[in-house]
Every structure is written in structure tokens, then in C-alpha cells.
């Protein structure tokens, strides 16, 4: 036996070593040990060689067809590929189209903001406030007619103060020189211009907010339209802001101080319209006549 063969280990090469070799995990020292072992174990060496041949056969080239064109044909049937030069053109026109859409949207937005009338395709239905405004316009016209009627009637009426100045016990205060009328206001009801007969009633147009019913007294002959805010039943009358704004006195005790301001047409926002009975007060203290 040669000296070389005396140094060769005689144990069977372990499977783990062979597997590690084919798994490419063997370090150099282990590989040497493997090859030395093969020299002493021909049967194992033959197995290893056979395994090596099997692996080698797997790695042999295969006659594979070039399927590129057929694949691309299928792909293009589902999704078209564009040449890079054409792609630039497509991208350019896509940007132009996007810019045009953006310009249109921006134009519409600006027009809507600053000149919406140009975007109206059909006349809009008028909201209820437009109806209310129309009603107000009619009411103003009626009030002007009322004023002229009151003025003409006042010219014909005989003031109490002009009655027999020598009648005994007849007080003739300056405030009583003109007939007084009281208007009982019923809140929440719709009313409007009531055209009253020439005498003794007067046409009144009342604007008012919601409030308790109250009596508002006004002097005949004033011929004005006035607004009414909230009034207490007890007779205390608050000075509405609208009245204070045009110089009404702060003294709110006497409703007469809120007597109409000639020629003034007032409007109070958010009004309710009242119905009321205009009653001519009997200056002699008798029951009022309607």
C-alpha cells in the first residue's frame, strides 16, 4: 500500500458533506476532505460523479424559440406601445388638452364669481323675498294714496279745538285739537293697506314686528306711514330704533309722542304685518266709533 493511501481516511463520506458540496456551501478545507475521501471510497465517488452528471445535464443549453415578437403582438392587442418620438407628441398634446380644460374651468369659476348673469341659461324662479318686495312696493303706493286722502279729509274735518270755544268745561288742550285715532294691533296676522272710507277712518299702513297686541295712537292728519315695533299691552311704549334714528324723543310714555312723522316712510326689516281696527276716539270720552 502506498504512503498516500495510508493517509486517506476510510470512513464513508457523509451525506451531509456531499450535499453541502452540491449546495455550494463547502469551504476549502471540507472540499479537500471530500476529495480525499472519494479516493478511498470508489462507490461513493461513483455516486458523486453520477450526481454531478445529472446536475450537468440540467445545465445543458436548451433549444428555446425567440417568442419576443409574438409576445409583443399579444401585448399590443391589449395595450398599445408607442414609439418614444410619438410618445413625446402624445405627451405634448395631453398637456395642451389638460391646460385647455383647466382654462375653461377657471373661466367658468371667474365668470360665476364676477358676472353670474352670463351663465344663467334660464330665468331663475324669484324667491319669496322678491314677492315680499313687490308687496311692499304696492303698499307704498297705497300709503301715498292714503296720505293724500288723509290730508284732504283733514282739510274738511272740524277739529275739536275749533268747536265752540265758549263751551263750559270743555278742555281744549292743544294736543286734542286734532282727532286722535287708535289702532289696536293684533300681532302675527297678515294685513296690508286698508283703504278706509274717507271719514272718520283713516287709511293706515302698518308695518310691525311680532309683539303683543297694543294700542297705538296716532294723530289724524299726519298722513304718514310709520313702522311699529314691539309694543307692550300695558301701554308702555318703547321707542323703536327706527323712530330714534329719525329723531323721535326718548320719552316713551306717551304714545302720542310717537305720533307719525309727516312724510316719512319707514321700513323695518323682518316685519310682520298687523291687522288692526282703526278707531276714532271720541274726544268727549264716549265710546269709540268705528
Amino acid at each position, binding site marked *: 500500500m502506498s504512503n498516500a493511501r495510508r493517509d486517506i481516511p476510510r470512513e464513508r463520506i457523509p*451525506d451531509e458533506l456531499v*450535499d453541502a458540496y*452540491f*449546495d455550494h456551501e463547502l469551504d476549502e478545507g471540507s472540499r479537500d476532505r471530500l476529495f480525499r475521501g472519494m479516493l478511498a471510497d470508489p462507490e461513493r465517488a461513483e*455516486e458523486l460523479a*453520477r*450526481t454531478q*452528471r*445529472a*446536475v*450537468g*445535464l*440540467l*445545465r*445543458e443549453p*436548451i433549444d*428555446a*424559440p*425567440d*417568442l*419576443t415578437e*409574438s*409576445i*409583443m403582438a*399579444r*401585448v399590443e392587442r*391589449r*395595450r*398599445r*406601445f*408607442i*414609439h*418614444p418620438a410619438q*410618445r413625446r407628441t402624445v405627451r405634448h398634446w395631453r398637456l395642451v388638452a389638460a391646460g385647455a380644460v383647466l382654462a375653461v374651468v377657471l373661466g367658468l369659476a371667474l365668470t360665476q364669481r364676477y358676472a353670474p348673469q352670463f351663465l344663467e341659461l334660464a330665468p331663475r324662479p324669484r324667491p319669496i323675498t322678491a314677492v315680499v318686495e313687490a308687496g311692499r312696493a304696492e303698499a307704498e303706493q297705497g300709503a301715498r294714496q292714503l296720505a293724500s286722502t288723509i290730508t284732504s279729509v283733514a282739510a274738511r274735518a272740524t277739529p275739536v279745538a275749533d268747536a265752540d270755544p265758549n263751551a263750559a268745561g270743555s278742555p281744549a288742550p292743544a294736543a286734542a285739537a286734532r282727532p286722535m285715532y287708535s289702532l289696536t294691533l293684533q300681532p302675527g296676522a297678515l294685513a296690508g293697506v286698508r283703504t278706509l272710507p274717507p271719514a272718520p277712518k283713516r287709511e293706515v299702513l302698518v308695518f310691525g314686528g311680532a309683539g303683543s297686541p297694543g294700542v297705538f295712537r296716532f294723530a289724524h292728519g299726519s298722513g304718514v306711514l310709520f313702522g311699529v315695533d314691539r309694543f307692550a299691552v300695558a301701554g308702555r311704549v318703547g321707542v323703536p330704533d327706527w323712530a330714534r334714528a329719525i329723531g323721535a324723543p326718548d320719552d316713551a310714555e306717551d304714545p302720542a309722542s310717537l305720533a307719525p312723522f309727516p312724510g316719512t316712510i319707514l321700513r323695518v326689516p323682518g316685519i310682520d304685518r298687523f291687522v288692526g281696527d282703526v278707531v276714532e276716539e271720541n274726544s268727549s270720552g264716549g265710546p269709540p266709533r268705528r
Partner: protein
Amino acid sequence: MNRRQEQRLIERAAAGDRAAAESLIRAHQYSLYAYLLRMSGRPEAAEDIVQEAFVRVLTNLERFDPRFRFSTWLFTIAKRLYLNAAARMKPAYGSDMVDTAGGVGLGPDRPAIAGEVAANATDAIAHALAVLPDVQREVVILFHQLDWPVSVIAQHMDIPVGTVKSHLHRGRRRMREALARCEVRVARVAEVWT
């Protein structure tokens, strides 16, 4: 082609660059065809599946996750297509073809010319692969034919690394035993390659 270059190709192909798509096909079609041919044993089936797999990949490139390998994605789709097709196909690997020393149309007396040796080699390896279960066959093909690392095979097949190695070792052993049964053919191959 490294992964960065491949990623750029993918991006260009996704944007509609035909040349980039063709480059991707050429980079992977051979290995995919070889894999499918070894798995199925049928060249026609391998061609069809290769084409369909690429079509699905190229029409859905926007879904590709760059954290993973493109080849892994491509092979996963191809494998699903193969399994669907295999369920409909008559198996190309017949068990009666295996364990036959003479093989198909060959005998020990025929002269070993180059083309015939190559054909014999092809038959030998086909027979050797035929004895393997599908999982072992796939692991052996991916590792030894396509040089996929064990970790990538494990990820692709969704099995632990240890299981991959186990399949690899057993697969090689069975292939070796199948080749031993085709000793005459193997010997002719050895005459050519030694």
C-alpha cells in the same frame, strides 16, 4: 443586467416604451422557457405559458413591487399558469417510461453520434426529472438550472429554507438513482463529455 438597470427598464416599459418591453422579454424568456419545459416536458405548452405569462406581466407593470425581483414575479405568474394547464393536460412524464434501462428508441448497440448523444442526454434528464414529485422537480430546476439562491427559491415557493434544502437533497438523490437505471445512455453521454 443588475436590478437597478432592470428597474429602469420596467419603468420605461410601463410608460409605453416598446424597446424596453422587448429587452425585458429577451432577458428572461430563455430561463422561463427552460423552467417550463423541464417542469412540463412539453415544448408547446412551455411556449404558450411563456407568452401568456409575459403578456400578463407587461400589461400590469404598474402593479410590480420593486422590492421584489422581477423574475420571481414573472415565474410566480408562469407557475400558476402551468398548474392550471397541468390540471387539463395529460402528463408528459409517464411512470412507465421511467426505470427502463433502454429508454425510448435507444439500445446499447447504436453508435454514439453527437446529435444522438444530445438526444439521449435530453431523454436521460427528462427521465431523471420525471421520477421527482413536482415540488422536488421545481426546486432542483430552479437551483441547478437557473442558479436561483436557496433563499429566493424559499420565497418564491413560500416554504422554509430548510425545506428547500431537504427537497434539493432528496431530488438529487432520486435523479442519481434514475440515471443509474439508464446506465447505458449515461455512459454514452459520459463518452462525449469526458
